[in-house]
Every structure is written in C-alpha cells, then in structure tokens.
C-alpha cells in the first residue's frame, strides 16, 4: 500500500497553531470554532492521576509534532480511491483522505425522494443548519476527553451528515472511509447521524492509513441520534497505521422504544482511546455496546464507556473482548449509571481479556452507580489465558500450536461479532481480524 504514500507533505501548518482561516465555513460555525479553541487551550492536559485517565499512557498525547494535511494531488486521490474497498454492497459511500472529500456515491433516487440526506458536513451546515445546530456536539464530553473534544470542534473541517426521515429503512449499509495520508498528519473525522421516528440504518466506518508505518493523529467525534422507535447500527473498523495516536469520542442518544447497536473493532494504531457515551433518554430504549480488540506489540487500547440510564424501563448491554499479545496493554473503564427515577433499568456489562503473552497487561475498571431502585444491574470482568484442555484437544487432533491458538482466539472474539446479526459485515470484520493474525505471525 506504500505506493500511495509517496511525496512528503510540505509546508503544512502545525495543528497547535489553531483553526485554519479562509475555509468556506459559515461565520457562526467559525465563531463556534474560535470559542472551542479557547476551551482547548484553557483545559489542562490530562494526567494519569485524573481518574478518567487512570492506567492510560498520557505521555503519548503530545500533539506538537502533528500538522494539518496538505492538498492532495489527483494521483493521490486516484490511489486512495483504488484502495478504498470495504463491503461488496453498500447503499451509499463517502471517502475522505486528510479530511478532503475524495469520492461521493450518493443514495438512490428513491431514498433521496423519500427525504434521506447524505452529504458532507460542511454542506449540511449551510443547507440544514437547524438540524446541524441542534445535534452537532450537543453533549459535553464527560468521559475525560473534554480537551480533545474541544480540539475536534475547533479544527473539524469536514465529515458526514446523514439524516434518515420518519419510517424510512435503508437496507444496505452506508460506508464511510477516513484515510490518513503522509507523515505526521492529523485528521478530525466527524459523523452526525440523525434518524427520525421508526427509521432504520446501518453505518460502517473505516479508519485507515495509506502508509502503515507513518505517524499520525486522529481525533474523531460521532453524534448518533436514534429517534423514537428507530433502529441504528454503527460499526467502526479502526485500522490506523502502527504509529498513529487516535482518540474517538462517540455519543449515542436513544429515544423511546429505539435501539442502538455499536461495534468497535480495534486493530491498528500505537495508542487508541475510545470513549463511548450511551444515553438512554426515552422509555423502552435499548443500547448494545460491543467491542473487539486484537492488541499486539506495543499497542495500547483504552476504552471508556458510560451507559447512562435516564428514563425508566431502559436496557443496555455491553460486551467488550480483548485479545492481548506481546507487550500490549488494554484498559477498560466502564460505568453503568442509573439516574434517579430511572426505575426498572436492566443493565449489563461484561469485559473479557485473553492474555496470550507474559508481558501483556489488562486493566479493568467496571463500575456501577445506581441512584434508583427496582433495577437489575450486573457486571463481570475476567482476565485469563487459553484453556489448557481446549489446547490439548486441538493438538491431539494434529493441529499445530499456532493454528490452534488462532482458532481459539478467533472463536473467543467471534462471540461479539456475531451479536451484530449482520452476516456480511461480520464476515468482513472476521477477515480483518484474520489478516491481523496472519500479519503478526
């Protein structure tokens, strides 16, 4: 893939020099960005002593070396396009590299006629300002990254806006690609997804690097809004290059009788922190939070979640599984919070770590804060290694150790992927997992 990572970007600005002027963004948005930049500068850098950053390698969050992406050439664009292959079938597609739109496959005329809006963020700011202003980063980042959410808000220049109107069901998934291109470059991906009553949609996001050995910085935010009775599925396949530092902050709001499911597959990057806030705002809301990580070498994955039950009769279910090899570290900090009056909550949280080497490390902090009664909340965290008996069984049937190990780990992770209940996406994710194993052996 290195063929598309040729000439070095020259003369781009460092991101710490602040928002870039002279972009075609509306004035009100630029004012908002200026305020966000002030916030970013005034909020202190996190330290490991801050509870939301406990166990996290905050030293890696030095942003001084990172710069904005420079303008891509036509060759670059063609190359990125060539490698942007994900699912075989999709309803629509947007491809970004260095926060620049490379290609746009719009939704069918039929969907367009029924009111589906699928367009770059900067156009939505102008054409759908009301919706945009109502939902764009409307929730404060409460899981520790307020500073980096402010940075994103100050520097975001493009992204995806998707609106699915009342009763519209989009059968095929919608795909979004974000590429990092060049050494030391940063991107600020954004997805603003709004579904109206009874709408249904699946979005698959791909995070990739053109040069797997180039350093880079990704700071993304997603706002996912599931309207009453809507059904939203969001899948993220994170496969940044080995030296990338990545932060992703997702907020999901689930209205009454709606259900949201998210799955995060973490394979790439040097350090990746993923914050997921799931707010169950209406009665009968349900949220499923899934994640799979395969961590090797020096990789560090840090996941922080909050299942916030605001209304009664809501349900949430979290399942995170990590397979760790070499000197990899995984941290999970999760909280189920049942607000006062959110009675009849049913919440579940489960983290399982599979340690494959003596130097790998798993930190788990599953938490509960219950301020209502008549609830059922449980959580479990386990850390262990491959069962000797399972291994013996496979070996006695002539399967060599590395293959047996791989089979067991894939089986362990597949439990999460299967929960998506979307076989084509599951197959695709399993392929990515297999490829990572093939790579590391």
């Amino acid at each position, binding site marked *: 893939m290195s063929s598309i990572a040729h000439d070095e970007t020259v003369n781009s600005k460092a991101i710490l020099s602040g928002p870039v002027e002279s972009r075609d963004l509306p004035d009100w948005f630029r004012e908002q960005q200026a305020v966000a930049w002030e916030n970013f500068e005034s909020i202190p850098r996190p330290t490991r002593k801050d509870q939301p950053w406990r166990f996290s390698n905050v030293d890696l969050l030095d942003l001084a070396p990172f710069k904005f992406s420079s303008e891509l050439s036509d060759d670059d664009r063609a190359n990125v396009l060539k490698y942007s292959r994900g699912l075989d079938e999709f309803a629509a597609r947007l491809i970004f590299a260095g926060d620049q739109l490379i290609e746009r496959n719009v939704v069918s005329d039929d969907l367009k006629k029924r009111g589906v809006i699928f367009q770059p963020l900067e156009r939505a700011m102008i054409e759908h300002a009301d919706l945009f202003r109502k939902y764009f980063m409307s929730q404060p980042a409460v899981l520790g990254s307020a500073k980096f959410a402010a940075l994103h808000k100050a520097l975001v220049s493009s992204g995806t806006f998707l609106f699915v109107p009342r009763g519209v069901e989009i059968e095929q998934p919608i795909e979004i690609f974000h590429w990092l291109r060049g050494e030391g470059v940063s991107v600020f991906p954004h997805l603003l997804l709004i579904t109206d009553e009874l709408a249904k949609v699946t979005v698959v996001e791909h995070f990739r690097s053109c040069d797997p050995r180039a350093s880079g910085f990704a700071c993304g935010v997603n706002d996912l809004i599931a309207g009453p009775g809507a059904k939203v599925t969001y899948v993220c396949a994170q496969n940044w290059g080995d030296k990338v530092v990545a932060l992703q902050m997702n907020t999901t709001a689930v209205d009454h009788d709606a259900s949201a499911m998210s799955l995060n597959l973490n394979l790439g990057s040097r350090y990746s922190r993923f914050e997921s806030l799931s707010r169950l705002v209406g009665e009968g809301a349900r949220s499923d939070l899934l994640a799979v990580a395969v961590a090797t070498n020096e990789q560090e994955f840090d996941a922080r979640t909050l299942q916030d039950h605001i209304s009664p009769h809501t349900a949430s279910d979290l399942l995170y599984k990590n397979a760790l090899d070499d000197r990899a570290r995984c941290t999970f900090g999760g909280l189920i919070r049942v607000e*006062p009056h959110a*009675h009849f909550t049913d919440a579940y949280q489960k983290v399982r770590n599979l340690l494959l080497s003596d130097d790998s490390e798993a930190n788990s902090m599953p938490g509960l804060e219950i301020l209502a009664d008549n609830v*059922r909340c449980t959580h479990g965290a386990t*850390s262990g290694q491959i069962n000797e008996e399972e291994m013996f069984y496979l070996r006695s049937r002539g399967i060599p150790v590395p293959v047996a190990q791989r089979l067991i780990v894939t089986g362990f992770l597949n439990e999460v992927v299967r929960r998506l209940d979307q076989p084509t996406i599951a197959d695709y994710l399993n392929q990515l997992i297999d490829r990572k194993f093939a790579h590391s052996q």
Partner: protein
Amino acid sequence: MKTGTKAVDIDRNKGDFAYPEVHVRDAGRGLSEKTIHYISDVKEDPDWVREFRLRGLKTFLEKPLPTHWASKDLEAIDFDKIRYYLAPGTGAKRSWEEVPEDIKRTFERLGIPEQERKFLAGVEAQFDSEAVYSNIKKAVGEQGVVFVGSTEGLKHHPEIFRKWFGKVIPIGDNKFSALNSAVFSGGSFIYVPPGVKVKHPLQAYFRINAESFGQFERTLIIADEGSEVTYMEGCTAPKFETVALHSAVVELVALKGAKLQYITVQNWSSNVFNLVTKRGLAHEDAEIKWIDCNIGSRLTMKYPGVVLKGRKSRGEVLSIALANNGQHQDTGAKMIHAADETTSNIISKSISIGTGRATYRGLVHVPKHLKHCKNNTECDALLINSTSRTDTYPAITVRGTGNSVQHEASVSQVSAEQIFYMQQRGLSKAQAMSLSVNGFVNDLVRQFPMEYSVELKRLIELEMEGSVG
C-alpha cells in the same frame, strides 16, 4: 439472647448518652509540632517514635485531600477544631475493680455482659484515646502472647514491634495514615509466638466520648511462624453535635504458615468520619482474613488489603456494609499479588436504606511473571428505597498468562414476590423486609463468630426499623 420476635424491641438510643468529661491530659484543639511534642512528652515516647510522629505530621500537611476520586464530604472536616489527644490520666488498669465507676456504667449501658468478658480470652477496652482497662487471661499470657497497648508495646517491646511498625503501611501511604502516624495513641500491639494457637479471640472495645475528638488508634499484630490468632474490634459511640474524626491504622503481619483473622463491627454514631487504613502482609503459606462490617458513621472510607508476599499465601476480605439515611459507606478491598500461587477472595455485600449510599471500591493487582495466581471478587448490592444509592468501582490489573481473575457484581432489590409470600403468612411488611435482608447477608454473617453474628443481626434489624411503611 432474646427470641426472634422480641429482638426487634431494642432501645434505639442505647448508645446515646455521655457522662461528664474528666480528662486530665488534653493537647487542645488543632494540630502543630507543639501538639506532637505534647503527645510525645505525655507518653514518654522514645526519640525514634517522636521522630516518626514529626515525619507523619510533615507528610500529612503536604498531602492534599483525595477529593479527586473520593467524596467531597471530606472537605467538611475542620482539622483545626479537632482535639488530637486526650487521656483520662490514668495508666492501663489490670483489674476490673480499679476501673472508674462512671466508665463501668458506660459499659453496662452498652450491654457487655459479665459472662462474655469471662468467655473471651482478653478484653482491652479503649475509653477515649488511652487503654483504660486491659486484661489478658492468664492462659494466653502463659503461652507467651504479648497483648499490650501501642504506647506500651513501643516502649517495652521494641525488639518485637519496631521491625514491623510502619512497614506494612508506610507514613506516606495516604493523608490519613500520615495523620495517624503523627498523633496515634491507643490501639493494640499483639505478638503471637511460633506455633501458638490462640483458642479464644482477642477482643477490644473502642469508644469515643468527647466532643470533636478524633481517635487515632494504631494496631499491629504479628503472628509468628505457624501460629493462629483471631482479633475482634467492635465499637459504638454516643452521638455528638459536631464532627468527630476517627482515623486508625491497622497493620497485620502473618509470618510463614500463620493464620490471622481480624474482625470489625463498626457502629460509630452518624456524625463520625471513619477514615481507616488496614493492610496485612502474608508470608509463605500464610493466611490473612479481614471480616469487616460497617453499620455506623457519617462517612466511612476503608479498604482492607492484603499484600500476598509469600508463595501460596492467601488473602480474604468479607465485607458487609449498611448505609442508612445520610450515611456513605465507602468500603472495599485491595489484593496485591506478589508471589506465585497466591489466591485471594473478596466478597462484599451492601445494603442501602433511605438516602444511604454504599460504595464498593476494589483493587486487584497481578503483576507479570507470576504463575497460578487466582482472584475471585463478588459484590452484591441491595437497594431498599427509591432514594437509596449504590456504586461499584473496581480496578483490576492482570499481566501475563499464568493467572486468572474474575469479578462479578450485581445490584438488585428485595423481590416483591418474596415480601408478598411472607405477608401472606402473617408477617408485617417490615418484618418480611427485615427477614429478607437478613437472608441476603446470611451466608456472610454465618462466617462471623457466634456472638458477633447475633449482634450484627440485631443491628441490621434496628437499622431496618421504619425504613418501609
């Protein structure tokens, strides 16, 4: 013991009384180097103890309050208004006859029965900060067991206690262990010689009986190779109007093959801040077990821990917390695995009543290159009212492939069906609730010594009174 139906009929104000204070020695309010020198002078501390206290004071003043993770309620403590040392001016008493009359009356109202005193091997009753009454049954003394107050221990047995004093919990462990290191007085120092199995539990009663008075006991128990000992502490305190602070440090050392069990029933009155550091060090094949029960106080922060230093050592924490109106029981456990084949077990049950808040905070650490370490953690919480609150914040670190750790927690309420079933059979709703709650903690309570489990069940019934209606 009263029968089941009558047990509910207990005078709720039993601990609510105070006799006139006749304190001969009083270090005054507030904390400075002067206070430390005053305490050291009164106690005739050896120079190294005075040094230790001064280092404690320095660390205490330097460290910030841990409010970045702990309750903001800590800020309500006014350290300048607290009396740090107070003693009735009498030395440790040997016989019951010598104990002052009004102190005896206090104990009587608390209902410590005569026969219980005889049954238990030794009673060290702490009235305010100095041991007033201390008596070890002859048999225990003959076995070579040393059971003395902290001042006496450091003065007369430095060869035994100095080696471990402040080693399991260093001065700078946290702000409150530093405070204790500066102003400690009272508490027990126990040494059990090799191979000695102390049959009866050693017991101490603690009381606070002066307004705004903080109690800073220091306890160090050393169980030498192959010995066995159980220590029990229980406390009730009269109610006062201003804030009282209790900040103890308890260090346990179990040498090779020793078994050490430490039992606490904490029932301070609801204005007490109870900020306690407790930790044990388990050598090869040794076992340390904390049984911790928290019913009283305004805010309790206590996380008994075991450092599993020797191969095949074992640590256990059994914890029951009951948080009623206005109370916050912030309890938990720490298990630090530092050798192969070590195992630990944490079982925590909490009940939140009214506006009470129960928190479990746990730490399990298994560093790399250890083999066959196991930890099991279970936390169950029961919520009684719609305003009750419970939290769970465990932190688990595991490195390497040879170990297994599991953690489970659940939150639930008393099942309506159970209550309905019992009401069908003629029990009142309150009785049914009380029975249900006792059932929830029963498998833990059963592990307590008999007289404590009876006391505990009674306390739970008392706390449940009027919470349902």
